[in-house]
């Protein structure tokens, strides 16, 4: 069965023509493709939202991974915000801390909802639960946030990639951040076109990001990349809502991301052989965690 949209242009055009939200087009497509009643589709997303909520709550209480590489940063950020001295503002730091919280739970082998992947699972919920405090959405609007993010992710997954092994971190955290930016715009009352601009602006600033996990663990630098992905998406959403547009259309940015992923060497695509994984400290940490010869002093 043919989907209602193959790319962002078709998605935005359909939303505009039918005077519907992007989330609504995604919901309609899901009902059509999977032949399930609306109620069931909404319920499943509601359950995913609950998993996200629980992961954020758990992370904000403080978790640590088995390797000891990550954990506790979400708590540090929340405490810092309470001090009232934050420079970048509470909403931004709240998004960052909640993205970190989710990924700290993920690294600790906790239960999370992949959005679009586990390694990039922090950005969409992180931004959602931060923006929530400002926009006071209904539960349904929060569920819709995930459908809007999903609509853009659907295009990326089918036209490019959401796999770090195939396309680098730009395909994972890059996609997640761009998806979140588009969803923030819709929740804040922006137009479908503005969602697409926010997506493009975010993705453009994630292009080229490599996947270079230290010791092959989804921890360093993944957790902090989620943090910055969240920050990137909030700022890009504000830019789009202010009327800033992307000179390169959304679908072309997605194609560029795909092309860059294709030409990325394998060492920088989730093999833990290049980038930060190949630094002296990265190597040292790997040897420390998995045993084996420690090459160089590292720390």
């Amino acid at each position, binding site marked *: 069965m043919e*989907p209602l949209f*193959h790319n962002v242009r078709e998605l935005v055009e359909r939303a505009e023509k039918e005077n519907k939200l992007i989330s609504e087009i*995604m919901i309609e*497509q*899901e009902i059509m*493709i*999977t032949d399930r009643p609306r109620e069931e589709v909404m319920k*499943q*997303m509601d*359950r*995913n939202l609950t*998993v996200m909520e629980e992961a954020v709550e758990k992370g904000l209480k403080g978790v640590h991974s088995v390797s000891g590489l990550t954990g506790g940063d979400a708590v540090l950020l929340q405490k810092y915000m309470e001090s009232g001295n934050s420079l970048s503002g509470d909403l931004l730091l709240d998004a960052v801390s909640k993205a970190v919280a989710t990924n700290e*739970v*993920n*690294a*600790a*082998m*906790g*239960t*999370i*909802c*992949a*959005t*679009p*992947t*586990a*390694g990039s*699972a922090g950005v*969409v919920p992180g931004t959602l639960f931060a923006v929530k405090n400002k926009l006071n959405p209904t539960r349904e609007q929060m569920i819709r946030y*995930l*459908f809007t*993010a*999903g*609509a853009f*992710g*659907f295009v990326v*997954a*089918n036209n490019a*990639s*959401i*796999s*770090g*092994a*195939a396309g680098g971190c730009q*395909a994972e955290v890059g996609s997640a951040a761009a*998806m979140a930016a588009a969803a923030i715009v819709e929740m804040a009352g922006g137009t479908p076109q503005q969602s697409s601009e926010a997506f493009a602006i975010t993705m453009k600033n994630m292009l080229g990001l490599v996947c270079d*996990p230290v*010791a*092959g*663990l*989804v*921890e360093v630098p993944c957790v902090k990349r989620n943090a910055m992905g969240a920050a990137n998406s909030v700022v890009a959403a504000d830019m789009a809502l202010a009327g800033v547009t992307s000179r390169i259309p959304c679908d072309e940015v997605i194609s560029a991301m795909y092309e860059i992923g294709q030409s990325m060497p*394998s060492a920088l*695509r*989730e*093999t*833990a*052989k290049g980038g930060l994984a190949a630094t002296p400290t990265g190597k040292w940490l790997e040897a420390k*965690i*998995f045993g084996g010869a420690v090459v160089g002093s590292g720390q």
Partner: protein
Amino acid sequence: MKFKSVFDIIGPVMIGPSSSHTAGAARIGRVARDLFGRQPKWAKIHLYGSFAETYKGHSTDVAIVGGLLDYDTFDERIKTSFEEAQKVGMEFEFIPETGHVEHPNTARIVLGDDQAEMSLMGISIGGGKIEITELNGFPLRLSGEHPAILVVHDDRSGCIANVANCLYKYDINIGHMEVSRKEKGRMALMVIEVDQNVDKEVMDELAELPNITQVTRIAD
């Protein structure tokens, strides 16, 4: 379109840390077990590409073993699957390979028990989604998301028509079908993705058809 549902993007709910290396790996293991039809007694798991490089860090190993024990992606028992495998008496071995494969996240699982042996190649294409690319040496494309029937048969005329007729009789619609053979006139394989679950009655009837060697189903 490789990704059909929004829940391929916003989902799955899973035990961390990696959708491709943990959730996808668990799913490959689980499809292998489904195809085998029962708890295997042993498994040799060959890992390629990024799977081979980072399987320990991503818990790919415990996830595949969890899948072989029939655990879903969000099953907490994935964390202790090695111990659980010992309890049910399944031996396993991981073999990281250096050979080149088309997709960076590839696993080949050879498994069996006293009666039978099976081999399967699966790839994890991102976000927890997988494809099964080879079964017992036959190349195939199987998303693992629809109920499917696998029919091993002799490469003779009428086999395909008989199977199709039988499914028609039970009003089972074929969504996707592939037929392949290793050599003309020898063993062949039909892979049939259907819209409904297929019950035992139909399976038994398929197995009784002439020139059919083995019939297996993968439930949704």
